[in-house]
């Protein structure tokens, strides 16, 4: 079965519907599926729930989907870089479920691994625990968190072979593997497609079993906070 598609629009064809739950990889603007986000903007589906650690910035990444009002609800750990997000949230136009970062990653991983719920000590005694089952193990309290089962995963890798075996680069890996795992359908965008057989099987970060559709394209890879140091005088 051919996984490689010619464009984001082609790869997204037939999988999008209003009100769906989309899990997205990326941390800040690092390792985000920018081509697929653009494709979803173009497709115009609405009332989306998006599980993603962050919400992009105003004019890049998931911020574009917020600007077009296609998102009904975000499931995120940190949304501080996006003024339009704040405006929509504070005016009640956008729902927001704050999820501790590690709990969000584990909820995706668990969903992808067929685990509907797990207990964690993260958030015990805080607003995060409100309405959740509390259980004691060995004298310590834990709260029940649910696995995320997404309708669609959109992720970005560095390179992949034609079967979807993928390798990420540096900290651009972040949420991409757990997000990829938790979707009924996973579409991955990469910078480079390499011939099957050319990747070291011992070095695959995400096996192609998780990847249903694949596209290659040019990435802007915008830097959010450019920090540098001066070269020491010789």
């Amino acid at each position, binding site marked *: 079965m051919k996984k490689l598609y010619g464009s984001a629009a082609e790869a997204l064809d037939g999988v999008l519907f209003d009100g769906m739950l989309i899990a997205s990889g990326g941390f800040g603007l690092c390792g985000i599926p920018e081509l697929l986000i653009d494709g979803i903007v173009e497709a115009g589906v609405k009332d989306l729930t998006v599980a993603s650690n962050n919400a992009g910035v105003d004019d890049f990444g998931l911020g574009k989907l917020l600007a077009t009002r296609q998102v009904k609800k975000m499931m995120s750990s940190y949304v501080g870089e996006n003024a339009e997000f704040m405006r929509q949230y504070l005016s009640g136009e956008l729902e927001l479920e704050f999820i501790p970062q590690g709990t969000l990653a584990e909820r*995706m991983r668990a969903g992808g691994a067929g685990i509907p719920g797990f207990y964690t000590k993260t958030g015990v005694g805080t607003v995060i625990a409100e309405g959740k089952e509390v259980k004691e193990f060995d004298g310590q309290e834990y709260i029940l968190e649910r696995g995320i089962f997404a309708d669609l995963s959109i992720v970005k890798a560095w390179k992949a072979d034609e079967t979807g075996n993928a390798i990420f680069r540096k900290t651009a890996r972040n949420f991409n593997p*757990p997000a990829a795992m938790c979707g009924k359908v996973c579409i991955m965008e990469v910078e480079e497609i390499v011939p099957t057989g050319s990747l070291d099987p011992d070095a695959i970060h995400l096996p192609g079993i998780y990847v249903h559709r694949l596209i290659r394209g040019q990435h802007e890879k915008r830097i959010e906070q450019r920090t540098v140091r001066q070269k020491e005088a010789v």
Partner: protein
Amino acid sequence: MPWDRNQMAARAARELQDGMYVNLGIGIPTLVSNHIPEGMTVTLQSENGMLGMGPFPYEGEEDPDLINAGKQTITELPHTAYFDSAQSFGMIRGGKIAMAILGAMEVAENGDLANWMIPGKLVKGMGGAMDLVAGVGRVIVVMDHTNKHGESKVLKECTLPLTGKGVVDLIITNLGVMEVVPGGLKLLELADGVTEEDFRAATEARLV
């Protein structure tokens, strides 16, 4: 003279031990990396998926695929390892990270910490802070002793939504150092030139 930001970071660095894996928060905690004693190996974790965080890159060598948890461009070191977010928080939640050094809005005498939200005002999110304080071996807070209105940030009870309950072990402020012990806070050290009277006047929490 109360300690400045660098002196607070230097004091926090004295809590480091050779071989430790440590997570540093944004702000003053980041400065702790400038004070790691010569000859000591401390590996910094960045919760977006990296162990062995290096300094900022030289101009022109920034890599959009290599950032820290504050989204700043950084570099790697010879012993750097990368991993995904689920594994990153697996090592945090699993107690493999020895210490987290974090900033705070409020700390209470029972070790409660609030550093993520001011209802109606600041709604950015907790990021990885709740996972860190729940999971790491030792939590050290570095912050100013009072807010910009001169009110104590070292309280009997936190007024803001909590990041974690009873999670703080040590508090380093511009006025001194306190340990969380049963019944309240134990004053361990005063900043140079700060009297115990000044310290007590700026502290709402019970000192034992």
